[in-house]
């Protein structure tokens, strides 16, 4: 896939702007017609109260049900619902629904649970699946997780529909990015959607600074924290569950691949977009060029692979700096052992953290580096390569960051102000599609805004 020249994309929602932008402006932007035309069959759960809209971009921590000094409690219910996929279909999923004002709000993935290092975290789970399946939560990476209520299961306590509530309690002892997921027949229940991300924030960061770990080398821009939570879906297995047919995981053959519960291009729609009521989390990563004075800190990307297969994930346009695995900072003795990498294989169940920055190495501005001064190897893109069919393009008409130019009559650009877009995706390219419709699947975009963002 060529950078910023996504020619064959069929459906293209307007991307979310970075978290520094006012949300109202983003939501005011026209929604993509193609998505509005989807036969939308997923009703919003009744009784949902959404006090404040989420920020349009970036990771969104769920509101704990209750908090106290050094503690956070999350009430979850296992419920069944549907997610939308960009080819027009919907898929039966199970999820850990956060309980909002007493009502479970079905969403995929489960809510992002955030805690501070040292907090006592309690997760209360009730089973509303209306099925014989017992459910549970396990917390890989957390030690000494206590479980009470429910019935003892193979990996932890489990709870049946109508069986009350099972409570899990642990100390979030170490900062980092973790997964939580079903510990009850996970070969079925994780596939069905019972998974989510757990983020533990370090206690050692100085006031006003954001660190991913208790180490200054893990510092990131507080306004640019992103979650990329991968999952893969075999719709035949989901249909088998929906129809109470035998479930044989050995027949698994995935056909959909999601980031934060959405398949591309829905992945780049803002958080909380109304047309995806059950998939609240976008995943577009928005950054600005590195600048030692005005933009010195990278963005943080928290990777979690909740799928059942490995995914080779990479950005275009730059490398990422991998700084942690499974909730441990990559340190050797005192010095950081983090490293630059292009493609990172995210093993099933693994987590990793990456710092993301983008350097405007070519001085891509018409003032500093006019075309006339460019070497013979640098050419203005051929419009045939940057305009894709149906007259839609990500290209601004100018190759320079933050500048726009002329486009052929009839061509619509998604570019707001000459920002760049780079694919950020699984390079297992069979996963770059929605059931044979590409581009789709396990992909999102890395958006590079000009310094200061679009005016």
């Amino acid at each position: 896939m060529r950078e910023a020249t996504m020619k064959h994309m069929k459906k293209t929602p307007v991307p979310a702007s970075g978290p520094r932008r006012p949300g109202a402006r983003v939501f005011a932007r026209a929604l993509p017609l193609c998505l509005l035309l989807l036969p939308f069959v997923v009703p919003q759960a009744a009784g949902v109260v959404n006090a404040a809209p989420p920020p349009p971009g970036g990771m969104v921590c769920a509101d704990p049900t209750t908090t106290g000094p050094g503690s956070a409690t999350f009430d979850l219910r296992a419920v069944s619902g549907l997610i939308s996929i960009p080819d027009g279909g919907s898929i039966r999923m199970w999820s850990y629904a956060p309980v909002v004002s007493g009502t479970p709000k079905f969403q995929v993935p489960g809510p992002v649970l955030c805690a501070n290092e040292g907090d006592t975290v309690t997760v209360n789970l009730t089973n509303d699946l209306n099925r014989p399946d017992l459910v549970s939560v396990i917390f890989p990476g957390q030690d000494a997780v206590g479980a009470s209520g429910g019935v003892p299961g193979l990996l932890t306590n489990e709870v049946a529909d109508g069986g009350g509530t099972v409570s899990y309690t642990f100390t979030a002892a170490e900062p980092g990015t973790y997964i939580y997921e079903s510990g009850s027949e996970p070969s079925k229940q994780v596939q069905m959607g019972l998974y989510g991300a757990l983020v533990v924030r370090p206690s050692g960061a100085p006031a006003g600074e954001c660190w991913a770990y208790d180490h200054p080398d893990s510092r990131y821009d507080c306004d640019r924290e992103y979650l990329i939570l991968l999952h893969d879906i075999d719709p035949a297995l989901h249909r088998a569950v929906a129809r109470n047919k035998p479930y044989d995981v050995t027949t698994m053959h995935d056909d959909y691949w999601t980031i934060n519960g959405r398949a591309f291009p829905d992945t780049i729609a803002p958080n909380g977009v109304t047309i995806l009521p059950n998939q609240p989390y976008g995943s577009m990563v928005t950054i600005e060029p590195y600048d030692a004075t005005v933009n010195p800190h990278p963005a943080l990307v928290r990777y979690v692979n909740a799928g059942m297969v490995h995914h080779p994930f990479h950005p275009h346009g730059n490398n990422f700096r991998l700084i942690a695995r499974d909730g441990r900072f990559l340190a050797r003795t005192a010095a950081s052992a983090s490293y630059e990498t292009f493609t990172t294989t995210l093993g099933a169940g693994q987590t990793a953290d990456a710092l993301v920055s983008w350097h405007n190495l070519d001085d891509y501005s018409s003032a500093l580096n006019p075309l006339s001064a460019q070497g013979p190897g640098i050419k203005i893109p051929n419009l045939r390569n940057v305009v894709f069919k149906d007259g839609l393009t990500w290209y601004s008409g100018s190759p320079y960051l933050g500048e726009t130019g002329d486009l052929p009559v009839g061509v619509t650009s998604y570019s707001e102000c000459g920002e760049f877009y780079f694919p950020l995706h699984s390079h297992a390219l069979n996963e770059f599609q929605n059931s044979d419709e590409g581009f789709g699947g396990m992909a999102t975009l890395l958006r590079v805004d000009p310094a200061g963002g679009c005016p």
Partner: protein
Amino acid sequence: MTRMKKLALRSGVLATAVAMLAGSAGAQLIGSVPSANATVVVADGGSVDLCALAGSATLPDPADGVGSASIPIWGYAVKVGPTCGDDESAALPGPTLELALGSTVTVSVTNALPGSAGNTSIVFPGFAGVPDPQGVAAGANRSYTITASRPGTLAYESGVNAARQVAMGLTGTIIVRSDTLGSAYGGAATFGSAYDQEIVAVLSEVDPAQHAAPATFAYADYRPRLWLIDGSAYDAASPGDSTVSVGAGTTVLIRYVNAGFGHHAMTILGNRQTIIARDGFPVPAPMSVVDETVPSGQTMDVLVTVPASAASGTRYAVYDRQLHVTNGPVYPGGMLMFLEVA
């Protein structure tokens, strides 16, 4: 043979301290837990003779996961009589060979496989030596001499028609003891690698169709239905077979050997594992993970620290997070075992 636990488990101190008692092939079976895949200590200058022969393994029924089935295998057995098969039976995986650092030993194989299997040989990835892609025909024997020049976990396997012969079970583990008692790597590592107890965890898969027709199976159809640790799938009817007792306050060394064709994301629940070596080479620095991929053909050594405060009965599940935790369609099963605090 009872479907007994095949987790080769013993005290590292004990393993090293046991004298090399006389065995039929200069080898000695040891192990505090009865083990189908015996551990064979081969002394410097000594030898071990292996038979490659057909047999069967009793495993959970791969069709519906209910009950058990007898799965045809090809496996290694230590040769104890004049004719392979009279006193030997194939096991999954082959015997673990234990060598002292710096020793030179001879390993021979007698081809007692069915004629349709063709020739067979043994290769020793990680050891200096010339591969033997020709092997020997049925009834013949060939010897290989290897030198244990560095400590660690390695494997041996068939070097002929490996796609069929390794899948059928012709594979085993080699442990080269370090220069330090109770230390996996001793002076070969820049960090400590001491342990109190070790577990050999050979990872493999079974496609029953491949095992039913090993000579003719079409690999385009390869689709495993059983996932094994050390030749056993987790069986809810006999969970003790997949449970290893560990001591509070001790360090457990798990030697993963991926003898299968797929990658496996080996995960521990409720604890962490510190990677100390891959393919018998100490890593630049130990790395603490929950979940790490053991690629096909690789070995990976990890240390698991059992807290001194761990209550008796505390269990740490060790499993493939690709969620190959079923026998056929039935959960629980597959590549799943438990460390249970005594």
